[in-house]
């Protein structure tokens, strides 16, 4: 149980990482709609994941509208796979 990655194990961050695992990159709005988190809450969770090196954030513009894109890094993908393996192992 102590082997579990605490950064990913938090439910909101697990949701974010699982959503990112199925895509190349997604924007902030998609994550907000799918997770149901507030902007501030989502921002802080993304910042935590970025700090851990699991998520890459790119701030850009679509026309004049600011756009925040998030993607899972190679380290994030590996951590997520390891987390799933640990959880599967625990539940067996």
């Amino acid at each position, binding site marked *: 149980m102590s082997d579990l990655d605490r950064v990913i194990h938090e*439910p909101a961050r*697990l*949701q974010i990482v*699982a*959503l990112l*695992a*199925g*895509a*190349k*990159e*997604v*924007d*902030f*709005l*998609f*994550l*907000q*709609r*799918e997770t149901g988190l507030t902007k501030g809450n989502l921002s802080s969770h993304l910042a935590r994941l970025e700090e851990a090196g699991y998520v890459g954030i790119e701030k850009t513009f*679509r026309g004049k*509208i*600011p*756009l*925040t*894109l998030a993607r899972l890094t190679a380290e994030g993908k590996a951590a997520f796979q390891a987390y*799933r393996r640990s959880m599967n192992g625990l539940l067996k």
Partner: protein
Amino acid sequence: MQIDRLMRRAAAYSTDDGIAELLIGLILVFAATAFAGGRLLPQEYFLVPQAIWLCSALGMAWGMKMLKERVTSPRGGYVALDEQPITIRGGMRVGRRALVAVMAVALMGFLVAFRDIAPFPGAIGVGMSVVFVAAYAWGGFKYHLPHMLWLAAFSTLVGAWCYAWAGSSLIAILCQGAGLTATGGVKLWQFVRSHPLPAGDGV
């Protein structure tokens, strides 16, 4: 929390808006109308229907990009999907879809070949509905049940019309196009209703 469902969510989101069905349906309607109209043209203009059909197919890519940028992304967000490596599981999925396509073609061929001895008018429509439902059940297409009912209803209509207008496959194409357009339109309408534009000036 269903992690597998969340991992599939990005891929499922790309079909939530119904834009693909809408545009494919419009292409079928354009094609059927162009070829039907082409019969009225003099012989030397035989390439006109093909040109219209080709232009509508090329326009689909542009239409898809424009609608995604202007309708889907501002409401539900932007998603770029990974290019999936070929795996055994992916290969099986492609195989299942290919099998559904072969079944559809074989069933259509059978029904057309034996249309004179089919037990009741509308058999083609019933057959096509079976194919659609099989495709849904096997996950071949990402339709939801209400949309399948639309398709089944239009497919039945196709069958009835094909019997009334024997030999006119353009009517079948036209009805399929209308069915897909209606399905896509309903999905797009539902998507727009359930995804209002967010307040604020950016995300």
